[in-house]
């Protein structure tokens, strides 16, 4: 028993851990990197054009980046710390943030202590300094002003893949944002009269409730019916046997009564009795009402009954 409780507790804790994981730094990805800027590239707070790293939150919860690390060196995972205590490091669901690779992290929260070299790999490291959360490889031949990016065809699936060809940079834009059209807009285009959605939805509602029907029928109704049938069978057999056994006696009693007193009332009474007997209409179940007829003379709860009795001479 104790063992089962421990297993259940551990299972519940694991389930909670799994739930908590979904709002952790593990949901972050390095979604886009630009190594070398050109004259049209993003300008930082100091008016410079640097390479930059975009981090994207794939979860539906807010994730705090503070305390994590960015690095381009597999052997030095703690190369550039993302400052703790800055509220701006809280990354909302499906939001992205850009870090400028200026080479000097003292420039501010969103600056790294390294610059990005073509051919390197950029790692996002968890706040334990050991776990690599995500990485992206910067191609050796990445042209200036172009970036390497990860895109999910469907933002629902969150299955991001690195685009093999360099692309035009889209900093601060959600990866896969080209599918930004709302579901309602898509449905309006694909099913303007609503018949497809209606037929599908009605089918699903019917299926869901039909499955419930089937489950309850197989789990509850069918066994109950079988049980009732099994219960009724011996009773019916017994009844038939009793009836069959008494048939001769009844016939004899009826014949005797008719011989003794042959008026109309007797015939009617016998006919009614036979009808009730043969159609099983004779009720043999008592109503089980308990009636208490109070008697005013009863003194069972009279307080004087509890008094100490004095001995009498």
């Amino acid at each position, binding site marked *: 028993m104790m063992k089962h409780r421990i297993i259940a507790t551990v299972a519940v804790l694991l389930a909670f851990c799994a739930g908590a994981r979904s709002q952790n730094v593990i949901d972050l990805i390095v979604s886009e990197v630009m190594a070398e800027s050109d004259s049209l590239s993003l300008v930082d707070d100091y008016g410079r054009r640097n390479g930059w790293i975009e981090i994207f939150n794939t979860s539906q919860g807010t994730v705090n980046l503070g305390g994590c690390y960015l690095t381009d060196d597999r052997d030095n995972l703690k190369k550039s710390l993302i400052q703790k205590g800055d509220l701006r490091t809280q990354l909302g669901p499906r939001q992205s943030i850009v870090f400028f690779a200026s080479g000097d992290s003292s420039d501010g929260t969103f600056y790294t202590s390294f610059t990005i070299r073509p051919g390197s790999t950029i790692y996002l490291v968890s706040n334990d300094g050991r776990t690599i959360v995500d990485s992206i490889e910067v191609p050796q031949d990445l042209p200036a002003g172009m970036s390497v990016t990860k895109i999910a065809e469907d933002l629902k699936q969150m299955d991001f893949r690195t685009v093999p060809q360099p692309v035009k940079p889209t900093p601060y834009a959600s990866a896969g944002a080209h599918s930004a059209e709302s*579901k309602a807009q898509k449905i309006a285009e694909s099913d303007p009269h609503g018949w497809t959605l*209606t037929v599908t939805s009605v089918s699903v509602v019917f299926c869901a409730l039909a499955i419930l029907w089937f489950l309850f029928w197989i789990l509850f109704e069918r066994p109950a019916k079988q049980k009732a049938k099994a219960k009724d069978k011996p009773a019916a057999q017994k009844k038939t046997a009793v009836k069959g056994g008494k048939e001769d006696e009844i016939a004899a009693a009826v014949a005797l009564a008719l011989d003794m007193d042959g008026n109309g009332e007797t015939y009617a009474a016998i006919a009614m009795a036979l009808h009730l007997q043969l159609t099983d209409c004779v009720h043999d179940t008592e109503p089980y009402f308990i009636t208490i007829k109070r008697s005013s003379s009863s003194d069972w709860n009279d307080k004087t009954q509890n008094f100490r009795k004095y001995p009498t001479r």
Partner: protein
Amino acid sequence: MEQIISSLQQFWQFTGFANCQWQNIAMIVIGIAFITVAILKEWEPLLLVPIGFGMIIGNIPMFPGLNIGIYENGSVLNTLYQGVKMGWYPPLIFLGIGAMTDFSALISQPRLILIGAAAQMGIFGAYLLALACGFMPNEAGAIGIIGGADGPTAIFLSSKLAPDLMGAIAVSAYSYMALVPVIQRPIMLALTTKKERLIRMPAPRQVSQKEKIIFPIIGFLTTAFIVPSGLPLLGMLFFGNLLKESGVTRRLAEAARGPIVDIVTILIGLTVGASTQADKFLTGKSLLIFGLGLLSFVIATTCGVLFVKLFNLFIRDPKRKINPLIGNAGVSAVPDSARVSEVVGRESDPTNHLLMHAMGPNVAGVIGSAVAAGILLSFLG
């Protein structure tokens, strides 16, 4: 003296009289009408009294910027309104519904569950009509859910799909729920023959406690796996029912069906009522929503009754035939629509009690409307 007059003139600008428009008066009159109907006719008084008074509160003309209106961030009413806007209240009401609902009628005759599915046609019928009227699919879905005859579900779905229409949808849903006896009776009588109305259904078998405990678990697993988007409503409904039936959480069940549901009903009614500010509510769209809502109830009732008639064609044993008068109970509106079945049934045969039979499709309707809401949310959300 002049200063006093000037102050009084300035104060006048803050009063409701100075800011009053005919739309405010119209909404206040509607609010009073709701309260009157609730008190005199006893039509859904637990909902119509808070909604009616909320309408009056929300339509008191006032000077904007005082941070007291329901649409002004940080105001008391706005804070209470978050439960509607973010969809917290409906699942809490479902928790209470689960804790007070006895699913025995459904468990004993599981075939009646399909009537609950048929009556959901009202939702999709209204969806098609709303699309034809020019609404966007998400708005049409939110309007369609009125046909589910389930106020909390209507609020939940409209808060997700079309928050701008939520006031009109919620008021429409609750109003028609109150009018269920008026709407359903003529349809039931028109669609059934005297002979059909006299059908006597076999007495439901007695359901064991074990079955009652297993029901919410299986019911939840089945529906939630098929429509996970209905999780908040289905989860709370079945959880509440498990609290009731488990027999070991009596205090929790009592809290869920008592204080919790009462508090949330007050808050939801009042804030939904207050959200019907004249400038946002009195529009052509709202009138259209009311019309579509009425049609959705008509379609739901019609489909429920006709489905039973169709179902009867496949039942060979005359003793197992279903009285079509319980078809209307497939729209959730618990327990009003089941009560309508009983009343109309007794008009034809005073000894034929249909209430227990009608409760089966009635509670199936609650599950069905939550499933339908989940489907609409996954397609359009």
